[in-house]
């Protein structure tokens, strides 16, 4: 396209942007440049700072330092409407339009054409039809309620509204997350058209294929810092993944390798999947085996865990426990089968903050027994004490509300919750996220200990070194699909990164 190299027409220049939250430096002197007529991917893992950057740009947060210049003028958006006035439009993953209003009303809300003071519905529909035709949606009747349109069409309508409000900078925050391939193509056509019209587009996505399909440039953030800005055609996938995940230990010597155990299939998944959610996968995990799962954010790791635990209902495949087919349609079934799941977001999906440590520990066991057969308080106390000692949970007493414990101790309590049910299969999603370094080591030691006791485990982690250290096998996920299985001495951080980066 145009000459991007010269930095000729920088549309948006962010320099030295900083944002502090209590205890965290979310953005640390980040630079970002968006040129007119380019599609610029903003990439990074969880906590990299991309959503903070976008929220500052759209006026949701105020920055603590740095400058933002749009067309050479310093700007400081105060809220979303203000950002819109400054000609920065945003489209989110969840469409922020009104499903109960018609397509035309959604396009024109707040600026409906009037005739004699009243909304001119006919004129509005006519103009909406013209806009829709511009975006290749001439088949959509402007009078249809928006909620009846497919999500992809709603996304395009959201974009059309943002652009029609005279956006110069368009932020697309994971707009493709819930679209299928054909719908993504439609969205890409629209994005290319807008690029040709000179609009600068910031595109956030977890799908690397999409980055390479449409983006001119890539900026990578990690841990709140800028890693670098590259032209897409000059950056290999492997380099990109390395930028995103960080340089792993060069000599990724395998830490400790167990003998490949003769796998007695405890839990086997055959072709389990769900359309638009996760491609079918096969996996067999034996007693005493730890399977690690690696992949970028949004690659389908947590989705796999949710299907395995019945939180999402698979629409294909079969599941076997000890060779017998089982029914797994809800978490209740999973608990009955003696599965356990420690979810990624401890605070919202795991702990019950106001309840005591003891109550949190016995929760799953009590649920499995059913509420008709309550554990006596003596039994509760005994169980809680056993695990507090065994997992070395540091707390003044078992009655302390769990929200006052540290992240590491909360994580141990979650583990204790499932261990109390004597599970045969345990899924841990990012067990070491957000806990301090010391607790890291303890959790990892626990994983190894549990596995030695004959538990089958699936551990999802972004910390490649950790995955390498405790896994018997590593499953690599990409684009909602299990793409590679590494075994034995093949398990190295470099091999995992190569597998994540490989692909069409």
């Amino acid at each position, binding site marked *: 396209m145009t000459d991007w190299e010269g930095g000729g027409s920088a549309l948006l220049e962010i320099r030295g942007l900083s944002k502090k939250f209590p205890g965290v430096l979310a953005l640390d002197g980040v630079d970002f440049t968006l040129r007119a007529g380019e599609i610029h991917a903003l990439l990074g893992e969880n906590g990299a700072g991309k959503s903070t950057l976008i929220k500052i740009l759209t006026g949701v947060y105020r920055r603590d330092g740095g400058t933002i210049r749009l067309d050479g003028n310093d700007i400081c958006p105060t809220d*979303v*409407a203000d950002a*819109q006035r400054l000609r920065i439009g945003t489209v989110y993953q969840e469409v*922020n*339009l*009104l*499903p*109960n*209003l018609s397509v035309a*009303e*959604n396009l024109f*809300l*707040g600026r*409906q054409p*009037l005739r004699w*003071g*009243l*909304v001119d*519905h006919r004129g509005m529909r006519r103009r909406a039809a013209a806009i829709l035709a511009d975006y290749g949606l001439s088949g959509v009747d402007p*009078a249809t*309620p928006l*909620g*009846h349109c497919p999500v992809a069409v709603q996304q395009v309508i959201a974009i059309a*509204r943002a652009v029609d409000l005279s956006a110069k900078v368009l932020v697309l925050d994971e707009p493709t997350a819930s679209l299928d391939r054909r719908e993504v193509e439609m969205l890409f056509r629209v994005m290319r058209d807008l690029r040709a019209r000179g609009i600068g587009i910031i595109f956030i996505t977890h799908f690397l294929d999409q980055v390479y399909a449409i983006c001119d440039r890539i900026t990578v953030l990690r841990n709140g810092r800028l890693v670098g800005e590259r032209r897409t055609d000059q950056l290999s996938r492997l380099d990109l993944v390395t930028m995103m995940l960080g340089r792993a230990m060069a000599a990724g010597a395998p830490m400790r390798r167990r003998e490949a155990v003769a796998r007695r299939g405890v839990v086997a998944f055959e072709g389990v999947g769900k359309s638009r959610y996760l491609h079918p996968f096969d996996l067999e995990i034996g007693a005493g085996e730890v399977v690690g799962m690696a992949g970028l954010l949004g690659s389908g790791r947590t989705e796999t865990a949710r299907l395995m635990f019945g939180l999402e209902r698979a629409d294909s495949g079969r599941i076997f426990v000890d060779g017998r087919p089982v029914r797994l349609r809800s978490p209740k079934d999973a608990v009955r089968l003696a599965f356990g799941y420690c979810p990624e977001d401890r605070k919202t999906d795991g702990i019950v903050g106001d309840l005591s440590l003891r109550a949190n520990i016995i929760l799953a066991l009590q649920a499995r027994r059913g509420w008709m057969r309550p554990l006596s308080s003596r039994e509760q106390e005994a169980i809680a004490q056993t695990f507090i000692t065994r997992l070395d949970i540091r707390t003044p007493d078992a009655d302390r509300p769990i929200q006052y414990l540290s992240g590491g101790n909360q994580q141990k309590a979650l583990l204790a919750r499932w261990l109390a049910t004597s599970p045969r299969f345990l899924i841990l999603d990012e067990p070491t996220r957000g806990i301090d370094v010391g607790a890291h080591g303890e959790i990892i030691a626990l994983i190894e200990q549990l596995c030695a006791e004959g538990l089958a485990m699936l551990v999802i982690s972004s910390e490649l070194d950790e995955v390498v250290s405790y896994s018997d096998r590593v499953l690599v996920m990409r684009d909602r699909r299990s793409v590679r299985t590494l075994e034995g001495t093949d398990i190295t951080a470099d091999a995992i990164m190569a597998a994540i980066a490989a692909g069409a």
Partner: protein
Amino acid sequence: MTRRFLPLLTTTGVFVAGYLLCMAEFHNFATARVACNLLTDNAYLGITAVGMTFVILSGGIDLSVGSVIAFTTVFLAIAIGPLRIPPLMAFLIALAIGAAFGAAMGAVIHALGIPPFIVTLAGMFLARGASFLLSTESVPITHPLYAMLNDLSLPISGGRLGLIAIVMLLVFLAGGILAHRTRFGANVFALGGNPASARLMGVPVGRTLILIYMLSGGLAALSGIVFSLYTSAGYSLAATGTELDAIAAVVIGGVLLTGGYGYVFGSFVGILIQGLIQTFITFDGTLSSWWTKIAVGALLFSFIGVQRLFQVFWSGSGDVDTA
């Protein structure tokens, strides 16, 4: 498009069927007089139902309207009687009080983020209490203007459409235009659809909320004026439970209780259905008037059930079961 109108068509169908049934039972039912009385007797309820329609369309609720009606009647009786304020002046003051009261509730709902249910519940007690403060007894209104206004009517083939019925019809007309043909109306629907999205799309949420409750309060006061004309008295126990009748009429009229979907005309049909049941019971003469409540309850229940079904069918796949 037709499926958008389905709840409305259902309601209208029920009304027409009901009317035909009544006509088959009682021959006098077909007269213009019955039809006019149906409108006149329910004028105050209809006016307040228009305000309630806006509130419910925006996803809120206003429990204070019955008390505001009672307060207005007592206020008018005192103002016109002992205080000797000219009736038209008193009407204006009453409207201003009602609108200001509603606006204040809207401001509290917006500024403090308290659910409308709680705020208007408090408003309900406040307004009812205030009317007791003015007078605990029924105060008759004997101003000549009242007699004159009550005599004003439009003769329609044997029946006469009273002034208050005409006022109600005009309020419905104006309400329909306001809801469906103005930017304010679109904002009301937007709030009912999804307040967070509405804010992101630049809808002035605070202003719209305040205007909605101001409209509801003002119309409740107008309804109080009509009620005082209708009864020629002011009584602090008047219109008890009217807020619930109004909500019932709105919901029977096809407005979704969660907001965002519906038509002002639907509420009109809702009022007619309630009035029809009442008239039927009066005609019958043997049934207790409580049967009105039972019939309305049954209707309400079935309409909400039907609405839920429509919702499930419309939104297609996942949307509803995750809600």
